[in-house]
Every structure is written in structure tokens, then in C-alpha cells.
């Protein structure tokens, strides 16, 4: 089971790295924000799976904080990019 979950972890990590290509290519900030949203969700997923693999319940709290901060960061992206564009 651990091996299977580890493979899942690798897949999720690779999907984060693949998303990075979109950050470099852009072209608009909106695309980069979208990629950032993917990173937030995917890292929450990784933490959930890791909590199973490492048998650490505390990682759920970490995942919760990641989820909150992902949202806050995205709002910061949108607001500051919007105002910057004026």
C-alpha cells in the first residue's frame, strides 16, 4: 500500500512540475495564477496522501493551512495584478 501511495505522490509532484511550464510561458498573469491554483490544490493532495504514508495526523493541519494560504495568495495575485494593470 505504501508503495502504491508513494507512486501517487510522484504523479502528483510531477503534475506540479509540469504546471510550472505554464508559469514560464504565461503569457498573461491570469495563466500564472491558474497554475498557482493548481499548485495549491495539488500540494494539499500530496499532504493528504503523505499523512497516510508517514502516519502523521498532524499533516492534516498542515494541509488545512496550505488550503487557506493558497486562497489568500490567489486573492493577493488577483488584487495586486489588477491594480498594477491600471
Amino acid at each position: 500500500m505504501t508503495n502504491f501511495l508513494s507512486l501517487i505522490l510522484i504523479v502528483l509532484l510531477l503534475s506540479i512540475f509540469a504546471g510550472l511550464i505554464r508559469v514560464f510561458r504565461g503569457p498573461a498573469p491570469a495563466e500564472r495564477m491558474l497554475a498557482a491554483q493548481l499548485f495549491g490544490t495539488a500540494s494539499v493532495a500530496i499532504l493528504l496522501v503523505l499523512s497516510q504514508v508517514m502516519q502523521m495526523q498532524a499533516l492534516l493541519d498542515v494541509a488545512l493551512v496550505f488550503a487557506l494560504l493558497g486562497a489568500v495568495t490567489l486573492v493577493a495575485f488577483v488584487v495586486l495584478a489588477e491594480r498594477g494593470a491600471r
Partner: protein
Amino acid sequence: MIDPLVIFDLLLALGIVALAVAALATRESFAMIVVFIVFGLVSALAWVRLSAPDVALAEAAIGTGVTGALLLKTLHHLRCATGQPGQNATQAQISAPPVPVGVTLANAAFCGLITLGLAVAFLGAPAAGPGFEGLVAQAMPQSGVEHPVTAVLLNFRAYDTLMEVVVLLAAVIAVWQIERGLSDAPAPVMGEVWQGFARLALPAIVVVGTYLLWVGAEAPGGAFQGGAVLAAVGLLLLLTRAYVPQPAHRGIARGAFVLGTAAFALVALLVASGGRVAFEYPLAHAKTLILLIEGMVTLSIAVTLAALFHGREPMALKHEGKDDT
């Protein structure tokens, strides 16, 4: 067969190094910040793998979340203040004329040598060498809390932690001093979807922050992580202009900045009686005192981080015909 978890570790480590390079190599400043935030998230994952969930929490909340917001705000300021709208308008202004390639190469080679030396030193150091874990395990029953990291932060090495809060205080005083009377862009239009979300999310974030503070006594969490999560609420309010700092609020803000330091230092000094020295909490009240300190410090951290994000001291600005509500 190689353990897939090792492959995951290797990939994560490679990804971290690649992201570090990418963050510095990316030309577009906005993309640079996005890459940096991803770098922070991924290093927090690595720290989870090193069985350091407390640190991962702190890094995600403070090192990545707050730092990323600060960087974004600064970039935004640099782009707005020149008065040229558009994405890449001020790239030339932000960066100085390029240095000769030779200098850069020499610097890079120099750093490479240093890094190589450090790597050699690292490989030569004993793996899983001596440490504090035995001492910590012995002292835990007298610490007043069940979570070792919290015991270290708030009891064994409480003096460091006090000084860390002092660093935050120094930072906010310095920032208030440095920035002055800069006017703001008009408030963003957030829309109804956001309003609905905010009504639900902001209280939820407050609850999570408080929970982290509370759970810190026995599990990963604590004052800094809780404070940072609470600061996120402040950040959202400031970003969406749901709250605009007023000059009249300065007194309260000052009080909130110093609250953590003052309470911490006072407790540390006042427990020194009856043969005890400073920072030596009487065992019967250790947990209460630690939670009291943590509560005050959390408040201070939340307000201070939000103020660091806002930057300047709220002053009675001379409105230069601008709509600044």
C-alpha cells in the same frame, strides 16, 4: 527494488533546486514571485518529509504566504509609482544596467567553490550525530506542555523566542519609520461571489488560527503558525480594502505590536522569585503561563505581520484630489 518514497524524495529535492534556479533566472518579475511561492510550498513539503511539520507550517504560512504577499505588494508599488501602466513598463527602471558577464561568471564560480566546500564539509559531518533529543526527553515532564517543539520555543529556549518577537517589533517600527505618506490606488472591485466567500472564509480562517494556537501545546502548531494564519485575515481585509487603517487606530496598533513582547518579557521577569531565575515558570502554572504568553504573542504576530504588509504608518494624509476611501 528502490523504495518509491526515495524516488519521491529525490524528485522533490531536484525540483527544489530547479525551482531555486528558476526563481532567479525568470525574467518577468511576476513569474519570479509565482515560482518563488511554488518553491516555498515545495520546500515545506520537503520539511514534512524530514518529520518537521511545525516548520513546514511556519514556512508555508510565514516564509511563503506572507513573504510572497510582501513581494507582490512591492512589485505592485514599483509598477504603479512610476505612473506607467502595463505589465512590463518599468522593467528597465527596476533593474540597474547589466554588469559585465565576466564579473557575474567570476561571482558564480566563487559561489560554486564555496558550495562545493560546504558540500564536502556536509558529507564529512557525522550523520544523525549528537543532539538535544535526550535532554529534551528528560526535561519534557517539567516543561508544562506535551509537544517538544513548543516546549523548546516557549520554555527551554524561551529567551530566543522573546528576542524573535523583539525582531518583529523592531521590523515594524523600522518599516513605519521608513515608509511615509504614500497614497494608495483605489479599492479593487471584488464582486458578490467574493463577498459571499469572505463572509464564510474569514471566520473560518480565524477559527483555524485559534485552533493552531491551542493545539500547539500537544501537537504541531503554536503561536507563530497561528499568528500567521490570523495575519492572513488581516491581509485579506487590507487587500480588499474592507479595512483601511486610520490615523486614529495608531494607538491600538502600537499596543498590539508591543503586547506580545511586553507580556512575554514581564512574565519572564516576574517569575524570578523564591529562588527561581528569569524564564523559570513554576511547574504548577507552567502551562497556563505558556498559553498566556502564546496568546499575546499570537495577537502581536498577527497584527505585526499585517502591518508589515500594509507598510507605512497610517497618517492623516493630505488628499491630493485623489479618491482614497
